Each structure stands twice: as C-alpha cells, then as structure tokens.
C-alpha cells in the first residue's frame, strides 16, 4: 500500500468503542518504549485459513471483526513470520531465546539439529522396541517439544517482597506467558551450564527434552523445587497485595 506517512497516521484513532487509553504524547515527556508504528496499527494475520473461510461459516463476531480490520492500518509482517504450515510460534520463540549476539542463523541451525536428533533417537527406540511398546513411543519431535516445555512450566512462582526491612520470598501466581518463558529459560540455562565441554548443544538439548517429556530430568526437578519452596512459604502469601 502506498504506505501512509507515519506522522499523518498518528493522529487517527479508530472507533471509540472500547476507548483505548491513548497515550499522551506530551512534548516534555518522551516515552522510553516507543515504536515506529503508531498505536493505531494492528498486528498482521498471516494464517491463510483465516481468509479462505467461507462467509457462511463465520459467526457475527467474526464478521464484525473482519469489517473492522478492513478499516485499520496493519503493521508489516516481521521477517520471521510466514504463512508456512511448518512454522511454529513456540519453536520460533525458543530459537530467539537461544540466540546469542543476533546470530539467528546459528540458533535456527541448532534448533533444527535438536529436533532432528530427537526424531532420530525416538526412531531408534521405536525400531528396537516390541510391537506393544511401539504404540506408546511418540516420534513427532514437535509434540515432544511442546509436551516437554509444558511439563517444565511452574504453576506458582516466588517474588521478593520488601516488608519492614527484610526481603521475603512470597508465592505468587504466574501469568501464562511468564510460565512459558520460565520453562524455556530454565531449559536453555540448564543445557548451557550443565554439559560436558565437548558436548554439542543439540545433543544435550535433545536429551533434556526427552527427559522432560517423561517428567524426569533436572528441569522438571527445578520446577518441583520451585513448587516446594512456594508451599513452604505459604504463610507469607498474604504479603501479596495484587
């Protein structure tokens, strides 16, 4: 689209239904987090199936949403997003977290190698197993990955709260995104620190993923430790005010 200049777009805010708190752009106060897109830009929807759905199958809400999207400005799709069926948002997020110094090429390479190693290991097990066991062995690396990360997610977390001069570890419920983040972070830290110097990341990571898939291994242990600490500090729960 003949991209409208960002300045001209800034003053436009769409329907005032669900009036968004438009952030004031006062001359004296510049925001630290700002984006080249104005607040009225919406995120792009790259899924092909969303558009191919015939109109008859849409609910009222979806129809309204479609009409609404036609009047909005849309941001450009980022370089990591495509409409490919092979793209997985969890895998992309994990790759980004593994990335060091902006070396996306290496991170992605490691990720693909990990998934391949997982698949190979599972296939070896499959071929070595008897017919009954073969039914239970999961071979899809993506399901293993998702399940492993889900098994590593803590349900409750600890937060340092300052009260009367002392810091207490208070148990606190975690948001979904925080839980996913912690699972991935623990996995990556574990694989980076506790491995033999000569061992490569894909090998270690695949090993850890398989262990987490079976609810074993150090990452799941760490999650359980977190839960135990939270249970131990149950009495401090009322220090939380939100």
């Amino acid at each position, binding site marked *: *689209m*003949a*991209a*409208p200049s*960002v300045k001209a777009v800034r*003053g*436009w*805010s*769409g*329907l*005032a*239904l669900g*009036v968004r*708190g*438009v952030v*004031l752009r006062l001359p004296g106060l510049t925001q630290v987090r700002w*984006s*080249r*897109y104005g607040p009225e830009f919406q*995120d*792009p*929807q*790259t899924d*092909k199936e969303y*558009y191919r759905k015939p109109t008859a199958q849409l609910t*009222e809400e979806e*129809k*309204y949403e479609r*009409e*609404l*999207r*036609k*009047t*909005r*400005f*849309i*941001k*450009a*799709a980022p*370089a*990591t*997003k*495509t*409409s*490919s069926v092979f793209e997985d948002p969890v895998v992309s997020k994990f790759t980004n977290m593994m990335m060091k110094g902006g070396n*996306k*090429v290496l991170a*992605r390479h490691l990720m693909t190698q990990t998934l391949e190693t997982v698949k190979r290991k599972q296939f070896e097990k499959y071929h070595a197993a008897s017919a009954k066991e073969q039914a239970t062995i999961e071979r899809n690396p993506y399901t293993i990955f998702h399940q492993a990360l889900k098994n590593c997610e803590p349900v409750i977390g600890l937060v340092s709260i300052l009260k009367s001069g002392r810091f207490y570890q208070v148990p606190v419920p975690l948001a979904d995104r925080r839980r996913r983040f912690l699972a991935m972070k623990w996995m990556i830290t574990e694989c980076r620190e506790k491995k033999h110097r000569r061992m490569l990341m894909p090998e270690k990571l695949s090993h850890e993923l398989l262990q987490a898939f079976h609810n074993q291994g150090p990452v799941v242990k760490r999650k359980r430790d977190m839960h135990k600490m939270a249970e131990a500090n149950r009495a401090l729960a009322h220090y939380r005010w939100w």
Partner: protein
Amino acid sequence: MAAPCVFCGPAIASRFFLGGRVTLAQGQGIWKPAAAELQAGTRSQILRLKHLTVVKTKKNVAASRPEKYTVDFIKKQIEEFNIGKRHLANMMGEDPETFTQEDIDRAIVYLFPSGLFEKQARPSMKHPDYIFPKQSAIQWGEDGRPFHFLFYTGKQSYYSLMHEAYGKFLDAEKRQNQLQAKDLQMEKTKTKDPIVSRWLIKEELEGMLAEKLSDRDYTRFIQLVERFSTLQCGAAEEEFLRRFRRSVTIQSKKQLTERLQYDEQGRAFSTSEGKRKSAKAEVVVYEHGNGKIKVNGVDHLLYFPVTQDREQLMFPFHFLDRLGKHDVNCTVSGGGRSAQAGAIRLATARALCSFVTEDEVEWMRQAGLLTTDPRVRERKKPGQEGARRKFTWKKR
C-alpha cells in the same frame, strides 16, 4: 495595530491592513503607541485610539491572562479583512469576487518579500478566525456577570454539552420505557454491519468545543453518547448524534495496483519496487512461469543461502497459492541480507497485486505483506554507548 505587547501570547501571524499601515510580527518587540499614531488612516486611527485606552487601563492589572475579545470587535475585524481583501484584489488587478486565500498569500509574498526564516514571522493576511484564538470572546457582560450559567465550572461548553446530551438521553429512555410498557416497541436491529463512521477523537472534540478536555472528560462523553446510540431514538436525536460522528477512511486499501505490461514475446509482466531499512529492490514478475527467481542475475538459492530469507521470498506466492506459477527477475541493492529479502518480498507482493482479485489484495494487506516496514536503525545518542545502552554506572 496598537498593542501587540499585550496580544502576544500564542504566536499569531500579524494582521495586515491596507492604507499604508504595515504591521510587524508580534514577537518583534513593543510597538510604541506614539509611532502607531503617525500612521495614516482615520477610521483605523480611531480604532487604534480605542485600543490605546484599553491598554492603558489594563497596565495596572497583572498581565498574564489571555486577552479576551468582544464579539463586536471580532465582527469589525472580519469586515475590515473583507474590505482589505477587495482592495488587495484591485491592486493586483484581479477579480475581487473570486479572490481566494491562496491568492491573498501569493499577493502578500509578492508585495512584501521577506527573507525571514521563521514562516510565522513573515507578513501575512489571514481571516480573523485564524488569528484570534477562538475562545477569546468575552464571556461576561459589563456588570461582570457571566452569560453562561455554567461559566464557573471552567469548561462551560463541555458541561453544557454533557447536560444537553444527558437530558436528551433521559427523554429517549423515558419514551422507550413508555413504548415498552405499551408493548409497542419495534425490535431495533442495530447491528452495525459496515463500519462507516466513528466517534470524534479527543482533538476533534476539543476543536469543536474550543476548550481543553482531559482524557477522563472525553471518555465520559463517549460513554454517554455510546449508551445513547444504543437506544432507539427519533430523527432529532439521530441528527444530534450525527454531529459527533465522522466517516472512517473507506477501508484503507488505497493500494495502487500496478499496470500490466507486455514484453516483445507477448508475455504479461508487472514491475514494482520495495524497500526495507536501506535496501531497495525492483522486481519484475512474469505471469506464466516455473517459479524461477533470479536476483541480480543469480539464482535465489545461491544469493540467499539462509533458509529464512528464502522463506520470505516465497511468502507472497505461498499466501496466494501461486507457488510455481510465476517467474521473477529482480535487482536489489543496499542493506543486509535480511533487509534485501524483505525488500524483495514487499516488491513481489506489490507486483502480484496486478494479477490478483481485489479481495486477495485486501488479504495480503491484512497479512502485512503490503506495508513498508518503517523500522530503521535507531541512532546512537550522546552520553550513551548505543541507542539504548547507557555507560556503565560508576558510583564515584
């Protein structure tokens, strides 16, 4: 004009009267009343003397309040402006009836060329509505009593509008309850299918009321007006509500579709450009082909060894289910490998618009394929190590 020293609050373009009176910009120092009297023009002089007296009395008062203008004063200014406009038209040898503001501006620039850098400091002649701030009409009479009964709220137009709107809302509700009691209510199907209009935004409302509003005020107003619109109301209420609606830019798909061109062999192709960061790409997409992509004369597999970049090249084709059906020839320069891939992606998406239906163009726009990515490298700031990173904090 007598007393710019009192008038200069906002930067106002100076007024320009004819008959030999040249006024300078208001930021340029105190215009001495004595010098003003030397100017010719009888009628204006009387006016100016009037101002002189006003100024003299106001000198004793703390002069930080914005100046208030009476309605008569503004009317007089408008009359003078119109007469001056006609004089100017005659001077320039043009027809006074069809002398527009642009003609006035051009005439002033011709008659009074100025080398000043600040555009607002140059001589100009504008309608009094643009010069005198809108809200400066004096809102109290000679006895000091304000005209409007809500004057002491501080935001009289806003509160009177809320009062009026709420009154109408209560009436409409009462009427609806009465109809409901009599079971005469017509089923209102107010599903807003096409989104054709929107409520005013805060800036527009402020302009309408000529008053500053807070975010909370604006939210309250929108909530009230939104509730009002959900009721069933008659024609008068609809008219009232329509004053606060503006039409939405009809579906920002002002995408320029490229023309289809034909080369010597009769093949149809379409060209377009795209850019991302500092990379610029120009792409030619042929209508019938095998899916070969040549970048700067080299196959895309060799030019983009990274999978992510190749995925970006394929994105528009995959989205439209046209993976092996077009041939692409492109030139790209500048930027890095990812930026070049993004530039080519944008250019191919734009080129494909000419082979595809309007609906699919809209889908591509909603998928973010047709927007130029405005993100560029943020500059490094002085006193910091990078764009965001600060220097290491040292206690001493």
